[in-house]
């Protein structure tokens, strides 16, 4: 673990762990969010036959940096009728919920913020922490749009957690551990050992597991789309009816923090599905570092593969956003309770029977 080595060098554990916590924040989350916004705009532009941002920097690459500079300089307006303490606290809570999940994401076999043996459960629990922040933001704004947005958002996140958790429980039944690092480790460096292809099991069991695992992944993916308020489940911030949903009243840096948290959440759910279903940090075809016998290269390759897989899933989320129209509220609830949850139950029973063979 990098954090332990840092602690030995620095001689102080707290500072070492603070640095380990700062690495995913400043080296990953902030640049990722900046370029995810850029990518989202470019993806939408390509899909709608436009050019997208192309003025600031080569190919518009510095566009979001200019945006964030603009947002820092913006006046911070708190409406007179707003509930001020809650209004100010909400961005903190939302961002804490997002960033706490980064603590258990295994970026590589040597880099994981906190190697707890409850990984998956912890991330699912802590990512619903931002529900409180969203409700606080919507309530404190004292605005009809933001309250509607927050209520819808909470109802949606809370409902879709049931199928998402059921899909994960059914995967955990075969995996047998909740530690994300161990889950990644057991899907050894060949892509047919990923859990979506039946995992590192042998014989008929592996063959039978392929379909239920695929179903579990699809259920989890759809539910996670709803949990991060992405289209087709973005009625909480349906622009055409609710202006901007729960953050209608927020300006300047507070607004930017909500955006950062939203893009961070997109990455977190993709990282969970990568770690559970797509082999985590394992390379699909073995490591270059091993074949050239440079052991230092292996962790770097692992980081590359982990980010490559998760960011591809983020890209799929963006692609879906510009492809599908959004659902109505009653359809949204029907998809959750009448389709996803029963399918997840059936899938759970199926996986239970298969792993008995």
């Amino acid at each position, binding site marked *: 673990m990098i954090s332990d080595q840092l602690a030995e060098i620095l001689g102080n554990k707290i500072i070492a762990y603070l640095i380990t916590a700062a690495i995913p*924040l400043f080296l990953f989350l902030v640049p990722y969010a900046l370029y995810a916004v850029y990518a989202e705009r470019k993806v939408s532009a390509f899909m709608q036959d436009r050019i997208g941002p192309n003025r600031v920097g080569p190919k518009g690459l510095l566009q979001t940096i200019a945006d964030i500079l603009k947002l820092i300089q913006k*006046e911070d307006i708190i409406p007179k009728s707003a509930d001020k303490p809650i209004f100010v606290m909400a961005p*903190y809570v939302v961002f804490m919920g997002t960033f706490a999940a980064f603590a258990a994401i295994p970026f590589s076999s040597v880099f994981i913020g906190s190697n707890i043996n409850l990984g998956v459960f912890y991330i699912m629990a802590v990512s619903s922490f931002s529900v409180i922040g969203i409700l606080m933001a919507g309530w404190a704004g004292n*605005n009809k749009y933001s309250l509607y947005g927050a209520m819808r958002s*909470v109802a949606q996140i809370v409902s879709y957690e049931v199928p998402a958790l059921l899909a994960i429980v059914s995967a*955990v039944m075969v995996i047998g551990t909740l530690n994300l690092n161990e889950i990644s480790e057991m899907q050894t460096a060949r892509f047919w050992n990923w859990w979506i292809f039946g995992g590192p099991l042998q014989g008929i069991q592996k063959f039978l597991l392929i379909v239920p695992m695929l179903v579990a992944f699809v259920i989890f993916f759809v539910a996670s789309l709803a949990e991060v308020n992405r289209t087709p489940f973005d009625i909480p911030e349906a622009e055409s009816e609710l202006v901007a949903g729960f953050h*209608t009243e927020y300006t300047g840096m507070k607004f930017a923090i909500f955006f950062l948290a939203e893009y961070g959440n997109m990455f977190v759910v993709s990282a969970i599905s990568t770690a559970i279903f797509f082999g985590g940090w394992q390379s699909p075809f073995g490591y270059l570092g091993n074949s050239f016998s440079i052991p230092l290269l292996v962790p770097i390759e692992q980081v590359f593969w982990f980010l490559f897989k998760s960011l591809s899933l983020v890209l799929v989320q963006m692609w879906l956003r510009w492809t599908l129209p959004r659902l109505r509220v009653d359809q949204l*609830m*029907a998809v959750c309770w*009448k389709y996803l949850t029963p399918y997840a139950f059936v899938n759970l029973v199926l996986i239970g029977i298969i792993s008995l063979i």
Partner: protein
Amino acid sequence: MLTEFGKILIFLILAIIFVALAFIVNRIIRPQKPTREKLMTYECGENPIGSPWIKFNVRFYVVALIFLLFDVEITLLIPWALVYREFGLYGFLVGFLFLFILILGMLYEWRKGDLDWVKPEVKPKDLKTVMKEFEEQYGKS
């Protein structure tokens, strides 16, 4: 000695520091010229009418109740799923007895219509009632 959850606490503290830092930088370099219009609640340019802090739709309460039941039950399922393969058929039967009750509860909710999102029902009146109402109001023509 720092436990694994202590490291998580450091993550949380760092998140707070990061957001606070962003707000402080923002506070230093931003302009501050509030006017009456700026401080008004946004309602698409109109003056806001009434308070949004009113009694809210009860449907959200039903959703929250159903969620609470399911979430607690799934939380109880996770430890079972974790050791499922060690117990074989016995574990299967125990777990699925529990699951069976869970599914039974869900079917009950489904049958009761709690999973339906209640929509306002607008029935178009047929021509006869419209004519009758018209006659009652204005007399025969």
